[in-house]
């Protein structure tokens, strides 16, 4: 099985790479800023590619050269800034949507013609898509809500080719995003709201991704599966 994963060099993406390569899958990591981390993951069955997933030409070129594949994991994403709406910069709003939403569109636009029938597409969303996100995080939360909806639209569009499209929606996981934006006090206050009493590990998320990559999930499509220790139950 041949896998393409965006944002695969760090955090949740890295954990997916480790999990899927350990069961013999062939992985193509797309990274942009994390060259140092990406190079460490390179191995016989893990290749790395520097691609700006918000740039149409780069995404098109990547798929022109990569050949056919089985699984696409749209994991790259992030928050640009937090601010109240009246102070929020349009530039940051657009960047957030490019990074989280447009990137998924572009990866699908150019990936769908070359993904094999019977393949899988997995989008990494966020709890904030349903909760509205942290205060000041409207851009991030709504860009992820768009990903949830795109997942359902794509599931319909690709069902005739037997391609399952699902989203994985993590709650609190300590990754670069929290490192950048969350104080220790705030982070701990989040954990207090979680019934299982702990934050998620990146491996918790990659386990679910691994399941959705397997044949055991072939009748699941168009779903957004929440993985958050019970923090939010729809």
């Amino acid at each position, binding site marked *: 099985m041949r896998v393409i994963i965006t944002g695969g060099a760090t955090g949740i993406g890295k954990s997916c790479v480790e999990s899927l390569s350990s069961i013999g899958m062939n992985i193509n990591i797309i990274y942009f800023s994390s060259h140092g981390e990406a190079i460490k993951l390179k191995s016989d069955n893990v290749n790395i590619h520097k691609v700006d997933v918000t740039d149409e030409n780069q995404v098109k070129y990547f798929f022109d050269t990569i050949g056919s594949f089985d699984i696409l994991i749209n994991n790259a994403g992030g928050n640009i800034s937090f601010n109240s709406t009246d102070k929020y910069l349009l530039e940051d709003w657009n960047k957030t949507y490019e990074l989280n939403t447009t990137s998924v569109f572009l990866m699908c636009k150019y990936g769908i013609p070359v993904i094999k029938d019977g393949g899988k597409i997995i989008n990494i969303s966020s709890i904030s898509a349903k909760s509205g996100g942290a205060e000041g995080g409207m851009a991030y939360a709504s860009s992820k809500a768009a990903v949830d909806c795109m997942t359902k639209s794509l599931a319909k569009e690709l*069902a005739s080719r037997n391609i399952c499209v699902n989203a994985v929606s993590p709650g609190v996981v300590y990754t670069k995003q929290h490192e950048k934006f969350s104080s220790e006090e705030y982070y701990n206050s989040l954990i207090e709201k979680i019934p*299982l009493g702990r934050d998620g590990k990146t491996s918790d*998320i990659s*386990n679910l991704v*691994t399941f959705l990559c*397997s044949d055991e999930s072939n009748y*699941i499509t*168009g779903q957004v599966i929440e993985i958050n220790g019970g923090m939010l139950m*729809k």
Partner: protein
Amino acid sequence: MKNLFSIKDKIIIVTGASGGNGSVISDGLEELGAKVFRADFPKCDVRNPIQLDMLVANAIQHGGRIDGLVNCAGVSYVNDLFEYTDEDWDNTYLTNLKAPYELSRKVAKHMKKNGGSIINMTSLNSELGFPNNPAYVSMKGGLKQLTKSLAVDLGKYNIRVNNLGPGYIKTNMTKGSWKNRRKEIEDRTIFGRWGEPEDLVGTVIFLLSSASDYITGQDIYVDGGYLVKGMK
């Protein structure tokens, strides 16, 4: 799949184990080395709390602990709303909602030490209205929320509680729909096919295994895209 998804030697109770879904799920779990305690009607009537006690006691006696519970038992009585009998309403309540509540509490007492995983089999009826079955629609809606209540109360013991909502699966329970609305339902799914009980097994294994250690209080629908599709 690697060990992460292992359910080998896990002690699992499955109710409704003689039914279309329950039997295939039980077989699937045993095939992977789990020890399954099957509650099947009429030998074990889940409406009877004493029989639930015996079921739990039997699993503890022979398994030493309980790692998983799959509440799969369910009944469905189709009838016109104005003809719907109290008996059918009560039986649906006792089997589809009260029994999972009672059994989950009884089992969770034994799971407190090591944690565990409880799966409630919900339904498309947990989300949508269907004709001529007020009890089934109501109890499946209730079961969906029971899961969330249990997930909150049992989280501190590392007991996870989730819903698995099957779509239209070819079983004895859906034979009326298969006969009368087969094509309509087929077309309503994204994949253009009914599900088989085998389609559920992977998700049950996933939710029982440590691969899903951070998932609790969630609804996972295995419905070929029935709920999502909505309008064509």
